[in-house]
Every structure is written in structure tokens, then in C-alpha cells.
């Protein structure tokens, strides 16, 4: 069948391979290792390239090399490994190379633990490496999107010659859902106008991020900003659920948006006008839509598994801090429905006691199968 029960991490590799990804370079780290395992299994089956690199620094630089040849290439990792890759991100952005990086976020800072978190938001959405660059960031919230948005990531990377990050977490990686397979496999065309392939056609080309002349580098920086402005204008994707008449708007991405969606249903059962705004692209961020809703006077609740990193973007887009709220968990804990509901009831003025004092003892599974 073309729909199968598939785990999120496997769906990433399925999406990548149907998108015509030719090379995978990666280094083990829980909870992203499964993507590496699946790549090592499936890539060689169709003659594609897989290398287990010696470090995340090496992985991202292998990506840099292979991407410079014009092939579709990717890597995956989790927080600590992504931190190591930041040098590579800025070099990719500086050399305007397309690449796809999948970040299966875990809890930090430091080694933290292997539970799910969304604390990589800033280092991915705001840059993370040095210089005036941005990544394009896609945030799936289902197994289907783990596949589809990985495919989309390759398309956007090529279109804008820019690194694209698929930002997910351990829960999405581990859960299984039906996957409708891509309708067909893509054989990407290599753009020889800039690639360096070791052939006559591309001999003149140079992959570099060096501009010795200060004015040249400034001009390049302005050019990059123009590109980002175009991306802002053309590539925002936002998913809305019951937002039209909502007075309370939850803003959430990834796995926490799934829980937020259930909270919307529960809230609506109580007659509360609550909706969910889910940025599918975190960069570009749906600034205009948030502003529209802000102008209508809605209350925002940022539902996130980080310390208000998403909230800050909501406030920035809304151009106000009043009427913006945070429901968050950190440390590897999944958002619980009751926490979101309690905040919705509080804002809606509904007198219903929800005991939020007890922390769930359940942990999202990193990579265990019995």
C-alpha cells in the first residue's frame, strides 16, 4: 500500500529519498540516531551515498562539500550536535549553498537529557552561527509532515540556495502514524551555473564565502537581506484551526501544537472561542497574520517546550506584550493538555479547577522498542 504505519524518523528518510537526496552524512546522537540508521540502511540500496562522519563538524562540512557539487544532500542531529554544526551553517549561508539539516531537538542546556524539548528554537530560527544570515526553518507536527516537509525543505533549499532546517523533536521522531507515500521520486537537476563538479562545464566556478573588499562584503550582505525579504514575502506557511472567530489564540509548533489542538477542541466544548495558529515555517515567521490577530485584540498563548523563545517572536510580531501568555514545559517533559486548558480557562474566566501540580511521570521514548 502507499500508506503505511511509519515512525517519524523513518518518514524523514523516505521524504529525503523521494526528494532525490543523493548524500547523507551524519553522526550518532539520541534522539536523532534513528534517522542515521535508516539512511545507512536505505541510501546504499539505491547506490546513494552514506557516510558516518567522525563528528557533527565533519558531517556539516561533508554536507558543504557535497552541496557545492550541486547534489541534494542532508544531515541530521540533535541539540548538542547542532551546536557543533553552527560553523557549517554560516559557511553554507555565506557560500549560498542549499542543504537540508534535520534537528530532532532534545532537552538542554549542555548535555541535558534525551527527552523532547524545543529549546533549539533560537539557535535555529535566529541564526546561531556568526554573521548576518538566516536559515529557512520548517516545523512538522505529524509523521506525514516529517516526510512532506523534508521534501519541501529540499525544494526550498534549491530555490533559495540557502540552508533549510527541519525542526522536530524526539516525540515526533518516535511516534508512528500512517504515511501516504510521495506520488513519485524526484531526480534533481544539477545547476551547473554555480556548482563545482570536477568537469569542464563547472571549471570556472568557485564555492566561497570570502569577500576581501569590505564594500563587496557589505553588498553581499545587503543582497542576502533582500533574499530573506523575498523569502518572508513568498514562503510563509501557517496552519490555522478554529482561528476565525477566536478570542484566545494558541500559537504552537511541532508536537506541542498537537496537544494545543486537543486543547482547542476541549475549550470549544466549553463554549470558549479558542483557536490554534501553527507556524509551519518558523523562519519566515507568520508575522503579518499574528499582527492581524493582535489588531483584533486576541489574547495569545504561546504553547511551547522552551523558555518563551516562541513567545518572544509572537510578542515581536504582535507589537505588544500585553495579552500574551506562556504555557511551557522544559527539561524533556511533554506539554500536558491540562496545563494548556488551565491557562485557557483562566483567561476565559471559567471557574474550573484543574490540578496542574502533579507532574506526569511518563517520558517520551527516545529510541526504545520492546
Amino acid at each position, binding site marked *: 500500500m502507499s500508506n503505511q504505519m511509519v515512525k517519524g524518523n523513518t518518514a524523514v528518510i523516505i521524504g529525503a529519498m523521494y526528494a532525490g537526496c543523493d548524500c547523507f552524512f551524519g553522526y550518532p546522537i539520541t534522539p536523532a540516531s534513528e534517522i542515521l540508521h535508516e539512511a545507512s540502511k536505505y541510501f546504499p540500496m539505491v547506490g546513494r551515498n552514506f557516510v558516518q562522519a567522525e563528528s557533527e563538524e565533519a558531517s556539516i562540512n561533508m554536507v558543504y562539500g557535497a552541496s557545492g557539487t550541486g547534489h541534494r544532500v542532508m544531515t541530521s542531529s540533535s541539540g548538542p550536535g547542532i551546536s557543533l554544526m553552527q560553523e557549517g551553517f554560516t559557511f553554507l549561508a555565506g557560500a549560498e549553498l542549499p542543504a537540508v539539516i534535520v534537528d530532532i531537538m532534545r532537552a538542554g542546556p549542555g548535555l541535558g537529557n534525551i527527552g523532547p524539548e524545543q529549546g533549539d528554537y533560537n539557535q535555529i530560527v535566529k541564526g546561531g552561527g556568526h554573521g548576518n544570515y538566516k536559515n529557512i526553518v520548517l516545523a512538522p507536527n505529524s509523521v506525514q509532515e516529517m516526510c512532506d516537509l523534508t521534501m519541501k525543505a529540499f525544494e526550498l533549499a534549491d530555490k533559495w540556495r540557502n540552508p533549510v532546517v527541519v525542526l522536530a523533536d524526539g516525540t515526533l521522531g518516535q511516534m*508512528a*502514524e500512517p504515511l501516504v507515500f510521495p506520488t513519485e521520486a524526484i531526480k534533481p537537476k544539477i545547476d551547473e551555473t554555480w556548482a563545482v563538479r570536477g568537469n569542464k562545464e563547472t571549471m570556472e566556478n568557485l564555492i566561497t564565502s570570502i569577500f576581501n573588499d569590505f564594500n563587496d562584503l557589505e553588498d553581499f550582505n545587503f543582497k542576502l537581506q533582500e533574499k530573506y525579504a523575498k523569502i518572508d514575502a513568498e514562503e510563509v506557511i501557517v496552519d490555522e484551526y478554529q482561528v476565525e472567530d477566536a478570542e484566545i489564540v494558541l500559537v504552537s509548533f511541532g508536537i506541542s501544537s498537537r496537544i494545543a489542538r486537543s486543547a482547542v477542541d476541549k475549550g470549544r466544548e466549553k463554549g470558549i472561542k479558542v483557536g490554534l495558529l501553527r507556524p509551519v515555517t518558523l523562519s519566515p515567521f507568520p508575522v503579518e497574520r499574528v499582527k492581524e490577530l493582535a489588531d483584533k485584540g486576541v489574547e495569545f498563548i504561546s504553547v511551547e517546550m522552551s523558555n518563551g523563545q516562541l513567545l518572544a517572536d509572537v510578542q515581536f510580531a504582535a507589537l505588544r506584550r500585553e495579552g500574551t501568555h506562556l504555557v511551557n514545559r522544559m527539561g524533556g517533559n511533554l506539554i500536558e493538555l491540562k496545563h494548556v486548558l488551565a491557562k485557557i480557562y483562566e483567561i476565559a474566566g471559567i471557574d474550573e479547577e484543574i490540578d496542574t501540580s502533579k507532574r506526569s511521570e511518563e517520558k517520551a521514548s527516545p529510541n526504545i522498542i520492546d
Partner: protein
Amino acid sequence: MSEQTNKDYEEKIRRNPQSLLEEYPRKGTNIQSTHYCAGCGHGIIHKLIAECMDELGIQERCVMISPVGCSVYAYFYFDCGNFQTAHGRAPAVATGISRAEDNAIVMSYQGDGDLASIGLNETLQAANRGEKIAVFFVNNTVYGMTGGQMAPTTLIGEKTVTCQTGRDPDYAGHPTHMCELINTLKAPVFIERVSLANPLKIRLAKYAIKQALTVQKEGKGYSFVEILSPCPTNLKQDVKRAQEFIENQMEKEFPVKNFRNNLYTKEPVIRPESDFTTESLDKIFNVSRGKSTGYVDDDIKPLNIKVSGFGGQGVLSAGLTIAQAACAEGKHVSWYPSYGPEQRGGKSNCSVVISNETIGTPVVDDIDILIALNKPSLEQFSQDVKVGGTILYDAKIGEFETDRDVNVIAMPCVDIAEEHGNARTANTALIGALTELSDVLKRESYENAIREMFASKPKVIDVNIDVLEAGAEWIKNNS
């Protein structure tokens, strides 16, 4: 000689090899001269490499990687595909290029700080993988571009701006011997150290470079050439002293010799072509086109199931079987695994949500049907079972009572499984019961799911299907 012949001769001698540009437009200003200091070894090495590229007829296939260091601008000069990379990462970048473009001849040109300090890991790992790349290591015992700091290869007693009284091994260690290090690895095909101390040695250096590039031309694997090279500026030497320094001091520390040459015995490394066809991918992922796709629009009441027990009891796979059955019927379904605070041998559970519409949270808090295989999880999750819901548990756990309005069934699932010869299928007996407790999914869907789950172990399929049926029978007769 006539004046004309003289001029021709001079042009022939002085002109650059074809693989070096005649002028350096990428340099911006002053396109006639290089950016290297007078007396620097880089210019010589560039010319030797370019001459070898010409002589081997490989210019079009070549990709030169410029590192960070004085040779950061090697791309000003080489007339071939060029990459510039981050500090120390050239061998990783080279790996990426070489794997993506099997026919490319990839050269990594690096200095001592780049290769032996910040990039030592990438250097050794690429060598150990036997990547099809040629590494040219320019060893002049000092950081050049950053202003003459101590390098990994700085000699004992040698003065630099960061070891101003001379390198002291008690504080700064000993010079790093890269050829010797790489020679401990099995994969490299060619390893040689050469010197630029005098014209004869320069000729020998060229021969080693040519061998290293021949290894690449023939696709045989990794080659490494270390070149002892002068840095008159940072070492504050004139021509004579630079030459003496290389011959009398560097060559003593770093013996000039061939360490390995398997050019003539090593077979080429052949890598396959990438296959981008839909057919091949469909085959490896077992996708059969044309059959049912997507979701079926049945109007069903959402069903929240939690399967729980100890790790190793087949809790997660039981949940997956249920989810597979739902998937096959075109239902929306999610399967979410979770574990208790103890990661090994502890509690394990999974949530399965079956619905006719997009599923919100995949974590089941309000349980319709709880399947419990051990006492702790029975006690824990029974609290979360909805009024009117069902608790189905392994009778071996013992008596369980609740004052809540839920349907409690103790099932001898282990006995049922044992009757069919395999106690490990107790979880399947419970799924059998589920087929009767809920009519959301058809029995045959569960059977198909079992066939799929155990596709790699066909022996256990029949047992599981028998146990599934026995579980269903038991529930019919006992409720």
C-alpha cells in the same frame, strides 16, 4: 641563439602551467603577482601541482580546496573547480565532494595549523576511510597568515611569537609527525614527505606530487604528501638561512622519504551510480501503487487505547499491531511510545488513538480501553480510564477492584497463549479480546497487521493468529 628564440625560450620557461591561471583576476587588484611573500614555498608547490595536473591531463576533473591559512587564496591561482572552506575542515569537505562526484579529482591543500592542529581529526578520519582525495600538507613549522604563532610542527627550541624563548616540550609538547601518524593507518595508498630545500629536492617533490595525483586519476584512494617548505617572513630568515633551516633542522626532525606507495598494487575503488527512480524506491519501501491510498471517511467514535506493562512484554508491538490494523483500514491513527522513569526493564506503555479525523494529542490521557500487562501500570492508568471505559488485564496480576464505573476484565492471557504453545504471545491474546470489545476495526485487519509485523519471522505468524482468535473466543464466552 637569435633574439626571437631567446624570447620564445624565456616565455616557455616563465609561463605558468595551463592549470595555473596566467593572471589572477579573482585576486582583485594587482593581478600579475601572487599574494605570497618573497621566498615562500607556496608558489613553488602551486606550480608543481599545476604541472602535474597538466602532465596527467586531469585539469578538467580537478577540484582544489583552499583551506584557512596563507593558502586560503589558492583559488586565485588554480585554473580548475575551486572550493574555499572553514579552518581545518578541508578533508571533510573533500569527502563530501568526492562521494557526490566520483569522477572528480579532489585536492585538499593545507598548512600545518589547519591540518595538524584544528583539523587533525578530519585529517586522520578521512585518511582512515581511504577517501579518494589527495592531501598536500605544507609544513613550514609556523602559523603564517595569523602572524607567526607556534604550530604543531614547530621544532623544539624554535622561537615563534607564542613561544618566544623557543618551544619547550615540557610546556608545549613535541613536533607532530603527520606522515608517521598517517602511516599507522591501513587505508592510505600513498604517503611521502618531500622537501623544497634545493632544486634537486624540488624535482623529487614534484615526482611525489605526480604519484599522489596518479592515485587520484586512477581512483585508487587516499594520497598524502607532506612538503617541508620555507617561511622566510615569519621565521625571519634570508634565502640562505631558510635553506639551511630546512636541510639542517627540519629534515632532521621530519625525515624526507617515501612511507608507502601502493599505487601499482591497489585496485581502484568503484562506487555505484545513484538511482533516482520511483520504481526502485517503491521496491525498497514496499510501496504498491494503485491500491488504496489515503484516508477512508468512516464515521467512527474516536477510540483511545493505552497498552501498558513492563518493557519486554511486547507492549509497544501490541500497540503497533493495533495501529497497523487501523492504518490498513484508512483510519487516522497515532501510536506513541513512552516509558517510566527507569529506562531498562521498567514500565513501558504506548498510546494508540484511532479516529476519523486529524488527531490532536497522540498522548492518551482519557482512556477508553486500557490493556495492562503488569500491576504497577494497571494501578497507575486505571485512574485515567473514562467512565464507561474498559480495563482489560492479565489475570496473573491478581484481584483488582475499583469503585469507578468501568468495565473490568481479568483475562488469563498467558494461559491462552501457553495453550497454543507460546507464552510470549500473551499480548496477542489481549488484542484478540480487543477485537470483540470494540467494533471500530475488523478482525481480519488485525490478522493482516500480525502478518505484516512478523513478516520477517513467518514461523510465529500462525501461532499469533491462533492466539488472536482464542482471545476473541474467550471474551465471547466470559463476558
